[in-house]
């Protein structure tokens, strides 16, 4: 199974770039136009557009054109899935390690 076939892998892959993490961090404050996103990065509109496309393909960001301006916003679901995966496994391992410890200590 190719890694990109998995939605969660795609989300993590998209967030492996510092530029894209910066974009996501700034979008966490709310919707922004593509040109406003590009400005502080000092990269071209086309450059930022490519990064946004990766985030969009990973289901992290939605883009909408209103008039002549494109706006981006975060999509919560996929981010929620990524953190839900981590939360789920963290809780499960904490509990498992507790039970494992109690069990193995009882063996000696």
């Amino acid at each position: 199974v190719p890694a990109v076939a998995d939605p969660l892998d795609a989300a993590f892959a998209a967030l492996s770039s510092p530029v894209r993490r910066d974009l996501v961090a700034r979008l966490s404050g709310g919707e922004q136009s593509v040109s406003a996103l590009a400005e502080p990065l000092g990269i071209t509109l086309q450059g930022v557009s490519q990064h946004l496309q990766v985030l969009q393909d990973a289901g992290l960001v939605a883009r909408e054109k209103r008039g002549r301006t494109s706006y981006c916003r975060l999509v919560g679901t996929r981010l929620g899935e990524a953190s839900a995966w981590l939360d789920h496994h963290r809780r499960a391992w904490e509990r498992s390690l507790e039970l494992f410890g109690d069990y193995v200590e009882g063996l000696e």
Partner: protein
Amino acid sequence: VSDVVIERVVAAAPELAFRAWTEPEHVRRWWRPHGMGPTSVEIDLRPGGRYRIGMAGGDGEAVYVGGAFRELDPPHRLSYTWRWENGELAGTGESLVTVEFRAVPAGSRVTIRHELLADAARGAHEQGWSDCLDALGGVAAHAA
């Protein structure tokens, strides 16, 4: 963070801890993530060998997790892939679990690391990731 790391010191030597972690008759006795008891435990403990654990909660239907052993260095270290076959986490892809048992005066320090397996996700371990995902957790809660 793109992975989960959990540690605990247990009052048992690494040899015993390793066996309790990898032998089905022991695993059956302590494996209860989220209160789900094991319904089946199959472990073929050799490099490339597979394991599969079924577990069920109150509502009955068993969920299965399984994978293959990658590294085996008893009694200190083992790693295995991890994939949910069904249930709410099916489709979240393959991940990797690495467990270490290091001898300490009190017994063993057990470290569990559970990480996503995609190459890209490994690249994501660079700094900044952690803060980012922490922030995302809050954002996700708002946006969902």
